[in-house]
């Protein structure tokens, strides 16, 4: 069953506040049913959208009707989208009107909702596509998400109905979300953290202010002051913005709590926000998660930010952590680093790299190797101290350094990617810095500020041609 079954019970209560005004749960469910009614259950649909009423209604309607959506950010390039369509062959695409014409060769219009179009594959039902009549989607599969925002990587995370339900209920439990809460969106719907805020608030019968405006828009703060949300979440760079905007001086008397996830916030920064928030009677809650765990795995109770500001906290209700050393043995002593392993009903079914993978059953069986290196203190609180895999978090998005290396290689550069969170460092042997910057900005959909490209004479490699990362210049 879907987490959105029974939302009708909230009746006339306000589900969303958006540009066109307030929308009750009843009206929202009606809109979502009209959209999803045009789509066959157990088919795959690409939902290319943003924090807009029709997009959220489509998402909720699809889950209720057992249609499986792949959520994509609407800033994805047409080339990347076409590549994903060729790999996954969705029967339907839900996309903004402006881009819908790009697919008229293979898809026809099945419906129009505000600025969005529902497209159906021409001759759908014949030949190979994902869903009814084609590649059968696994019965448990409820949702498909990307791991890296909008980089167009074909690797997707398979999420079950049970995953969404258990993670949503767990988050509602530890954040004590009730129908009197009101959140404002600050992250894309296609991003698992952004989506978890929508899921939890709908499930609890709360309200959500939908906006595409960023914290640097006047529009955001106009809506903020007018509708007075009592919570929002943010990835690390959102907190840098809040600091720059003199967050401490703002009137936030109506706020109950603020959450942070999507990358590690420096401990000093946590302390600074804790103090500002405490001053205003707001709880500041640091959390930890991954799309592979639907969204959330850990949280730090607000009162513990005083003595454990560097910690990701403890496992969420229903979840469990342990650490393993390089030999796969469980570490039982405190303050010894090892790979962080999570167990819980929110651990996704596994990855998909092509349409056939959508037929697969659960491969993870509730256990996720996070790839993060952590240690645990005597009180059972966890601390991330490193990463096993080569990836960075940039503005909350995961960037896989091996994929960046491949991308540069394919484009003909002798280059290597490294760096730290929010700063992707590239060493290259030819002076084509501007070209590389443009390529990365276009392909990774990141602000070029994130890139630091440096010319070096030679990339250090061993005899086998393997890159010696330790021999790269210090960064």
């Amino acid at each position, binding site marked *: 069953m879907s987490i959105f079954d029974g939302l009708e019970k909230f009746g006339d209560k306000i589900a969303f506040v958006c540009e066109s005004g307030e929308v009750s749960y009843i009206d929202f469910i009606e809109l979502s049913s009209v959209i999803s009614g045009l789509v066959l259950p157990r088919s795959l649909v690409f939902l290319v959208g943003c924090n807009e009423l029709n997009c959220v209604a489509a998402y909720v309607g699809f889950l209720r009707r057992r249609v499986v959506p792949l959520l994509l950010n609407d800033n994805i390039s047409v080339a990347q989208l076409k590549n994903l369509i060729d790999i996954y062959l969705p029967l339907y695409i839900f996309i903004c009107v402006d881009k819908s014409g790009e697919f008229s060769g293979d898809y026809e219009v099945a419906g129009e909702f505000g600025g969005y179009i529902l497209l159906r594959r021409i001759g759908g039902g014949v030949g190979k596509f994902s869903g009814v009549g084609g590649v059968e989607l696994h019965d448990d599969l409820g949702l498909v998400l990307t791991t890296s925002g909008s980089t167009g990587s074909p690797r997707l995370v398979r999420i079950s109905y049970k995953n969404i339900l258990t993670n949503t209920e767990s988050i509602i439990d530890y954040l004590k979300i009730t129908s009197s809460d009101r959140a404002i969106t600050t992250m894309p719907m296609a991003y698992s953290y952004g989506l978890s805020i929508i899921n939890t608030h709908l499930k609890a019968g709360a309200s959500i202010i939908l906006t595409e405006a*960023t*914290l*640097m*828009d*006047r529009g955001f*703060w106009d809506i903020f002051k007018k509708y007075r949300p009592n919570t929002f979440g943010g990835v690390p*760079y959102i907190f*840098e*913005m809040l600091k*720059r*905007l*003199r967050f401490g*001086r*703002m009137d936030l008397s109506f706020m109950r709590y603020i959450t942070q996830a999507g990358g590690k916030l420096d401990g000093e920064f946590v302390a600074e926000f804790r103090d500002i928030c405490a001053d205003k009677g707001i709880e500041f809650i640091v959390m930890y998660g991954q799309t592979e765990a639907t969204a959330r795995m850990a949280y730090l109770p607000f009162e513990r930010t005083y003595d454990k500001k560097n910690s990701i906290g403890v496992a969420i209700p229903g979840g469990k952590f342990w650490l393993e050393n390089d030999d796969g043995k469980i570490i039982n002593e405190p303050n010894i680093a090892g790979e962080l392993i999570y167990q819980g009903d929110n651990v996704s079914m596994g990855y998909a790299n092509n349409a056939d993978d959508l037929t697969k059953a659960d491969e993870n069986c509730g256990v996720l190797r996070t790839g993060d290196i952590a240690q645990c203190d005597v009180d059972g609180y966890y601390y991330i101290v490193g990463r096993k895999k080569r990836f960075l978090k940039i*503005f909350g998005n995961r960037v896989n350094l091996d994929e960046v290396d491949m991308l540069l290689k394919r484009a003909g550069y002798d280059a290597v990617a490294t760096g730290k969170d929010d700063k992707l460092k590239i060493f290259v042997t030819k002076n084509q810095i501007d070209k590389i*910057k443009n390529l990365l*900005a276009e392909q990774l959909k990141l*602000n*070029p*500020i*994130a890139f630091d490209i440096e010319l070096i004479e030679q990339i250090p490699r061993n005899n086998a041609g393997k890159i010696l990362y330790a021999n790269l210049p210090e960064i």
Partner: protein
Amino acid sequence: MSNIEKYDAIFIKSFDVDGSVLGPDLKYQSIPSWDSVGHMSMVAAMEDSFDVMLETEDIIDFSSYDKGKEILSKYGVEF
């Protein structure tokens, strides 16, 4: 360096653009690099370079190349 030269240099560096695009048409979100991330870094560079501390309202209203000059002049930066 004159104030206008400093001002232009910050735009060119923060948004990774050519000097030719500086003018009345250059606005927040009119180019991909002037997004919320770019805005934050540009404002930080302005504050450092002109040794001022902008009010919240002014940071949000700093939404075009022209508007920015107007805002900085309130803080005594003359162009």
